[in-house]
């Protein structure tokens, strides 16, 4: 219990400034919407019996689409999918990125160099292209597959960033001191080094989560999403496929884009705040 308290206190310390609080508030709102979606949403999921192309009104705050679905309801249900993909894929990415980064950075030598060469190699090939080819050859695309594809392919840049951070930590005397004290590699990597790069890990976590949201939207837009699931990406994709622009149906185009933007903006604010607060090395990260 005491431990939990100290962890909470530590996390509280990590929350950075006004920007970070604003970012957290935004993310929190989306989480609430996702959890209580079915109570908040005015209509049932995928209910298509309304008139098509209705512009916003009191009965349909965000109007209806070409299929006669209430866009606000779809948006609220879509929050669940989009957040799910973002958080789970972001976590997978972070786990792999941290693991590979710390091992490659700490071990150095053949293991480290080898791992990084492979990372560099795949880093050159655009991730979206890799995702496209993977997704298009998969027998079917469910939300799980989307998550896996995004999660398994986005860790490269993060691994590099974590690695360079680990390498600079390794130069620090405390790592050598730990070795001199007879600590094992695992203890040094995860109990000595890792706590010191938490700010960088968190900032990266935030960044990859953002990218996961955007990647999900991109994949859906390319027709590689789960056709049965509702997400912000699929809403946008449908809007485009049904020429929403030509119908001047801005109520179909703006909400999903703005929702994506707000969520990612929240994440980026948190990440930027963390880096600012710890004056951590940004490397080349655009945060």
């Amino acid at each position, binding site marked *: 219990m005491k431990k939990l308290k100290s962890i909470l206190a530590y996390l509280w310390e990590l929350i950075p400034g006004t920007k970070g609080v604003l970012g957290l508030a935004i993310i929190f709102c989306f989480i609430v919407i996702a959890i209580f979606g079915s109570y908040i949403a005015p209509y049932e999921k995928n209910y298509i019996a309304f008139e098509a192309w209705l512009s916003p009104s009191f009965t349909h705050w965000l109007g209806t689409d070409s299929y006669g679905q209430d866009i606000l309801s779809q948006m609220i249900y879509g929050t669940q999918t989009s957040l799910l993909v973002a958080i789970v894929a972001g976590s997978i990415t972070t786990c792999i990125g941290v693991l590979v980064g710390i091992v490659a950075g700490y071990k150095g*030598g*053949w293991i480290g*160099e080898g791992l990084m060469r492979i990372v560099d190699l795949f880093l050159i090939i655009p991730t979206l292209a890799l995702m496209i080819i993977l997704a298009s050859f998969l027998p079917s695309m469910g939300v799980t597959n989307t998550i896996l594809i995004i999660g398994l392919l986005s860790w490269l840049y993060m691994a590099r960033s974590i690695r360079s951070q680990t390498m600079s930590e390794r130069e*620090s*005397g*405390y790592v*050598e*001191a*730990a*070795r*001199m*004290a*007879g*600590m094992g590699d695992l203890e040094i990597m995860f109990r*000595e080094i890792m*706590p*010191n790069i938490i700010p960088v890990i968190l900032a990266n976590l935030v960044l990859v989560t953002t990218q996961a949201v955007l990647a999900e939207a991109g994949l859906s837009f390319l027709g590689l999403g789960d056709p049965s699931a509702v997400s912000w990406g699929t809403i946008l994709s449908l809007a485009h496929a049904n020429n929403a622009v030509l119908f001047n149906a801005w109520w179909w185009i703006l909400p999903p884009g703005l929702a994506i933007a707000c969520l990612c903006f929240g994440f980026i604010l948190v990440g930027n705040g963390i880096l600012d607060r710890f004056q951590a090395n940004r490397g080349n990260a655009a945060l």
Partner: protein
Amino acid sequence: MSNYKLQVKELNKIFSSGVMFKKDQFQAVKNISFNLRKGEILAIVGESGSGKSTTARMITNLIKPTSGEILYDGTNINNRKFKRLLPEKIQMVFQDPFAALNPNHTIGYAIGRPLELKKKAKGTVRERVLELLTQVGLTPAEDFIDKYPYQISGGQKQRAVIARVLGLEPEVIVADEPTSMLDVSIGIDIMNLMLDLREEKKLSYLLITHNLGSARYMADRIMVVFAGEVVEIGNAEEVINAPKHPYTKLLLHSSPDPWRTEVEEIEIVEFADTTLPKQGCKFQYRCPFVTESCKTVSIPLYGTSNDRQVRCNLYREELVHEQA
């Protein structure tokens, strides 16, 4: 058994850059041999890049030597069985006390964790940590044990580092420039602490330093290294008062000493290029006494056993004669 705590024999270290194309090789340490007696302080003095820190790291097994042996009480430290014991035999005090303590752990954890790992504490770990803190002058110890490194000053950090080292009860401590990052007035405190601990616990120190003054203050013997080689070794007072090797002379001459009385103007060969000669004496480019033979044949250490050895042709007659 010999009375040597540590014997270093023909130690070599070659660094190669690039993992795939091993083109650039750099010999950081070349055939360094020396012994460290129980309770003795030996200072290794040299400029940056002379190989002194590399030697220290090989002795503490942080890096592997390319060739050569390091014996602790007659056992090779790279011996599989010995490796696990090493932390309890040889310890290291690092140059940068600001980096040597993990900012995420308390002082108590930093000192206590190695005790836990090596089961060194007789009572509770905390009691032992408090005892160690008191020993290094961090009193009242209760005030320090739960502090984080950023809450204490540089000198106090170095004391904590020494406490951690002492906890493992080593007999040999390698100190790599232990005071160079500290303010001078604090540095002298640390040196005094180390000297006191030596008396108390009969420790042997290998002191790595670039400062001849602190080498003289601390050490019983001084070993001067240049370009990875030992150029002179001997009793500290003798080396400082009557240096033999031209490089040692140059070092002494260059060290600021406003109270210098005799103006022994040795000719300084200004030298901007840092390349080293491929053969012959490594110091030949900068040596005012260089002769033809220095340029071709590599020079052995002349002199008697461990007491006084010089790698310079000027002393061939004198020291070889002595040896005979």
